[in-house]
């Protein structure tokens, strides 16, 4: 139905003068985004590190061969997948659910709830992540104090391979669910009220309304929000970096933190760049495949 309308292409004249308006954006994209990106991709093909800081040269695929033969790569990719998928499957549906609950007819206290959900979003993440790291500390951390009061033993929230990743996902959940609640509230509110009234007249219960009105109308938006939520999490640096620093061992090291570790802690810039390139290639393939199945990019037209 909707698809057929997409083929009604309006043949509009190209407006060359319009380029003037987007000139700042083009300049920024060219010089401050894509030029450094290509520069970085080039680094991944060189031996640029602290030893060859001023005289680095082209070494071909040597860095990639090194990375692919190291056992760390697969651990790090596995961690990245657990981290991104684990975070996305909890935060995105929770935001959607809260938006639906708050948008029920005659729901009281909407503004109070929404204001309270603003807290994690409105406080700089840089700070709240450090607050969480104190709350999850083994001795004196409030999480363990609670467990002790309830008669449980203290947990190694951030220092055992068993719980570290779960703790990271928990903190990420706290940081991100408000954003998804607000985004979905705005999406749900964009549906005209008449459609809900029509569904009610036809005797639709809440589940049928959800399945036949809300979800079909929002399917592309949901796809878009979920997929970009996944990408954002994939590249979310501060949570693992500040909470566990990738540890214990490399059990919470994800591609972006590992790339940073190689580049800045070991001053091996070319190896760091190689990890970043691998991360981008994986994400790019993911976006192309996801777009093929969901057609989510149509919301940009």
């Amino acid at each position, binding site marked *: 139905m909707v698809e057929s309308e997409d083929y009604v292409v309006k043949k509009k004249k190209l407006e060359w003068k319009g380029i003037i*308006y987007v000139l700042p954006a083009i300049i920024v994209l060219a010089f401050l*985004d894509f030029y450094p*990106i290509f520069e970085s991709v080039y680094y991944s093909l060189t031996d640029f590190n602290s030893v060859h800081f001023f005289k680095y040269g082209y070494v071909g695929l040597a860095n990639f061969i090194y990375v692919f033969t190291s056992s760390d790569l697969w651990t790090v990719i596995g961690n990245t997948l657990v981290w991104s998928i684990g975070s996305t499957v909890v935060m995105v549906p929770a935001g959607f659910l809260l938006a639906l609950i708050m948008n029920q007819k005659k729901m009281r206290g909407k503004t109070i*709830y929404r204001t309270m959900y603003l807290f994690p979003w409105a406080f700089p993440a840089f700070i709240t992540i450090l607050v969480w790291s104190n709350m999850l500390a083994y001795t004196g*951390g409030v999480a363990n104090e609670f467990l002790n009061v309830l008669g449980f033993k203290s947990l190694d929230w951030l220092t055992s391979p068993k719980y570290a990743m779960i703790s990271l996902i928990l903190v990420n959940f706290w940081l991100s669910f408000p954003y998804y609640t607000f985004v979905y509230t705005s999406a749900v509110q964009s549906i005209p009220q008449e459609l809900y009234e029509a569904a009610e007249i036809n005797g639709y219960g809440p589940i049928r309304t959800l399945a036949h009105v809300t979800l079909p109308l929002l399917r592309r938006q949901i796809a878009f929000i979920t997929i970009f939520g996944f990408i954002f999490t994939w590249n979310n640096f501060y949570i693992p970096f500040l909470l566990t620093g990738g540890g214990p061992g490399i059990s919470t090291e994800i591609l972006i933190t590992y790339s940073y570790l190689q580049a800045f802690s070991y001053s091996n810039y070319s190896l760091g760049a190689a990890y970043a390139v691998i991360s981008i290639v994986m994400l790019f393939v993911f976006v192309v495949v996801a777009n093929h199945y969901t057609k989510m990019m149509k919301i940009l037209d």
Partner: protein
Amino acid sequence: MENKLSNKNKNASQNSSESMYKLNNHYKRMRIAKRIVSHIVLIMFALFAVFPIYYVVITSLNSIGSLAQASLGDLIPSSHLTLSNYIGIIYHHPFLLWLKNTLILTGVSTLVGVLLSITSGLALSRFNIPMKHVLLYMMLILTLFPFTMMVIPYYFMFAHLHLLDSYIGLIIPYSAGALIYSSYLIKNYVDSLPKDYEEAAQMDGLSRRSALFRILVPMSKPVIIFALLIAFMGPYTDYALAGQFITSKSLYTMAIGLYYVSQGDIVINYGTYSAFAVLMGIPIFILFFVFQRYLVSGFSLSTYK
């Protein structure tokens, strides 16, 4: 009451109305139960959302020395609350200088970035610019790239231009980031606005350009405020870039200051750290609360596509 009714006349219509009544009653009870469950879920999430902030505020007002000495009892406000941590920060660290630096740096970057993005956002929505889609896809693809890829090339670029350890060297990348993201937000928002107003204005003799700017810019107020808020947040808390670029102490921002204050002694000087976190959070917090409604109305992804 129900029994009386059914005893009086047992015809079919009466029966069905009785079952309707029961059904209605059932629905009503279901509705109340649903309401209660809804509120329980919302309250639980609200407590979860607020608790860490409450925790940091209350610790900042306590005079606990170190994290290891903290206990659950400290979470309850008592007569021991003190402002000594705050006083300590303002007297022992150049906090006000860091605050001033951060506000200038962040304010300029945000304004430059968002103001430049208004024209490109409008044009991307309303003009049939050649290669428009290529431009939009390039903007989106940028989200795939981790910022770690940018830090080193930026460092060399700005070193060549002699802009390291200066605010201009930070304002350029900050406002560039805001420009791209805001153009994209504004484009999406303007897409959802009807074309009737600008067309009417053009009929009344306004040129296309002034029709766009005089009509659409005021109508885009929610998204512009939303973009300003989001753009403000990034530079305000940035450490990754500022920490690499800025070396003079007189140019320190709050994020660098917090790192500097907390380095190594969070555990020892727990109260000071918490007070710093609260002070740094307050400006952003106020902005978000004042402009709260734009957080819903400003975010728009056009429906029905």
